[in-house]
């Protein structure tokens, strides 16, 4: 009941004209980056952070969160119409969405995806509103050892689940950890790897590195291949046939549950629930041969799952202060820049803020539903901008964004260098998400480990004497052993794909 009252209070804030405007801007940019290949939600969120410096924190996060969940909607359109996923979570949608479009049913695929996304997204936000406060209250009992164990678990999950090779995942994670060491040591204040350079004192900026790894590398890859923009199929008839409603709604229900649960597990990404949902739908279907040829459940399930994931993936951020994907890591950065500390105390210390964001997400999802149902055809036209024009424009925006973080060309240079590194990492199939996540998490991990060691007076095994930290560390070890086993047996390809551009 308490949550409901606070949520209503949140709506009061979120429904102010300015916040509605920022919500609209956020979800529109989200749709755009979802539609445009070469610009993903992580880069776009990073790009818009400098713009929010002068803004009220609530409006700023409303806008940035809009990009995050809006991107999931946009990616569907290009997957269905031109067989080119705009973002990673929509790769699966191509499998059945594009065949549907070729049968002249593009409208139905988009309609079902939009309805599923709306239902999945809305239910997961309801979950966030009601599970979030309870989880945050429970997390108040966490001390440094529990937080360390939780972050370790999140990292192991990222490394274990992403990419096709455990070794490459680990390399990415350790690379991120080492990069985060540059600058001042948080505990002793000593300078590490600064080589007397003043701009290295504050370490590498997560926003700049994300723009390089995810943005510039994607531009380089896009400029190398220069995809062809083809003809757009006609979008008409947005609703499925009468006999298709029942299986569609069932797939949407299953997708919602899968997506929501996946979001709660630290270290998962929106691609994973989409993939799980697709294989579930295929497995339980009476006629499996329909899949890949235009099965409506193959679009409804995964599209719902990735949107349901989006809302629930914010739960670990809001309640524990732990990001589970690069985009959420950027959001975490934005929280901190605006003087907010995500974690168990957020619900208590900044209730206005939290509830306004949650309320704005309901509104954002409704705006997205309207944008997607009647206006899908219009958005698809954006994808027809030729890449030879699109990529250079994105490049200039990215350079400008990097410069404006600290008013310095140093950041542009760092982004440039990480763009080249990211390009080769993609080619060598080394996942990039662990790099970004470890950079964010490592300072927190180092501090909580040092504090734990002080509490335990140097006894490492004391981690196993506290039930929560012991459980999480044991789980991490199990996941790691499982990943090593899968790697040795060469079975680690099912959940492949670098996640969230």
């Amino acid at each position, binding site marked *: 009941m308490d949550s409901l009252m606070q949520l209503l209070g949140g709506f009061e804030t979120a429904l102010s004209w300015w916040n509605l405007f920022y919500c609209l801007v956020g979800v529109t940019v989200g749709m755009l980056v979802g539609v445009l290949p070469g610009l993903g939600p992580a880069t776009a969120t990073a790009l818009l952070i400098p713009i929010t410096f002068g803004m009220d924190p609530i409006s700023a996060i409303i806008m940035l969160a809009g990009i995050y969940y809006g991107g999931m909607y946009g990616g569907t359109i290009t997957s269905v119409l031109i067989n080119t996923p705009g973002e990673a979570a929509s790769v699966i949608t191509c499998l059945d969405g594009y065949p549907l479009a070729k049968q002249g049913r593009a409208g139905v695929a988009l309609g079902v995806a939009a309805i599923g996304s709306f239902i999945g997204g809305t239910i997961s936000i309801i979950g966030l509103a009601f599970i979030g406060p309870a989880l945050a209250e429970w997390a108040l009992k966490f001390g440094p050892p529990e937080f360390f164990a939780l972050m370790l678990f999140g990292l192991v999950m990222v490394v274990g689940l992403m990419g096709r090779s455990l070794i490459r995942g680990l390399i990415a994670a350790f690379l991120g950890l080492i990069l985060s060491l540059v600058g001042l040591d948080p505990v002793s204040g000593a300078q590490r790897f600064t080589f007397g350079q003043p701009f290295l004192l504050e370490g590498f900026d997560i926003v700049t590195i994300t723009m390089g790894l995810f943005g510039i590398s994607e531009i380089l890859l896009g400029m*190398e291949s220069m995809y062809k923009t083809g003809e757009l199929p006609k979008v008409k008839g947005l609703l499925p046939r009468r006999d298709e409603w029942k299986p569609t709604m069932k797939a949407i229900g299953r997708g919602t549950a899968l997506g929501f649960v996946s979001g709660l597990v630290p270290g998962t990404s929106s691609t994973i629930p989409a993939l799980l949902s697709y294989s579930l739908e295929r497995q339980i279907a009476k006629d499996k041969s329909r899949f890949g040829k235009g099965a409506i459940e193959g679009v409804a399930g995964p599209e719902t799952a990735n949107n349901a994931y989006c809302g629930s993936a914010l739960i670990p951020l809001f309640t524990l202060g732990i990001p589970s994907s690069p985009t959420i890591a950027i959001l975490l950065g934005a929280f901190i820049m605006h003087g907010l500390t995500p974690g168990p105390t957020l619900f208590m210390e900044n209730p206005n803020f939290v509830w306004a964001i949650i309320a704005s997400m309901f509104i954002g999802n409704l705006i997205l539903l309207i944008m997607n149902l009647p206006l899908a055809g219009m958005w698809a036209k954006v994808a027809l901008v030729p890449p030879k024009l699109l990529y250079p424009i994105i*490049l200039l925006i990215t350079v*400008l964004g990097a*410069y404006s973080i600290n008013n310095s060309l140093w950041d542009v240079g760092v982004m*440039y260098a990480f763009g080249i590194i990211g390009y080769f990492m993609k*080619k060598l199939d*080394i996942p990039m998400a662990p790099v970004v996540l470890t950079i964010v998490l490592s300072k927190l991990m180092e501090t909580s480990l040092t504090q734990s060691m002080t509490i335990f007076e140097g006894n490492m095994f004391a981690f196993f004497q506290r039930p929560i930290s012991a459980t999480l560390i044991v789980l991490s070890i199990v996941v790691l052993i499982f990943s090593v086993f899968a790697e040795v047996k060469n079975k680690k390809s099912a959940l492949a794909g670098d996640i969230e551009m």
Partner: protein
Amino acid sequence: MIRQNAGIWAGIVLLLFSVFVFWQSFSLHYRTAFGPGPGMFPRWLSGILIVLSLVYIWQSARKEIFRLSEILPKGEGLINILSVLLSVFVFMVIVNRTGFMIAGTAMLFIVLFRHFKWYAALIIAFVVTLILFLIFKPLLGVPIPVNQFGW
């Protein structure tokens, strides 16, 4: 054969990097009177990365082989990538003197002129830069690099 193996080359670069960090970590204190010192994390992390790079090199030689010829861009793709890299480099070198309008136009022109007629490329480059300038500076108030005339 080995010289064509991109994984091995990447592994060697990674190994050199981690050995360098490992070596550098010895200039930091491993322990302090209160507990772990600033050198503890760097030493362990780079030590583990050394082991990981060695396993990666071994794996690249035996299991999944990425050939250099498949990884490095070639032909038109290579020229496109080089033009992107050159354009950002030129932007960084000149922007503090020329300001955003000239540097941005030059940057876009370098990437665009091979795909459009030169005058069309110049016009597109200028118009896009101008639009971005107007959106970012007067409208959003975001600091961008400008010359003495304010553009």
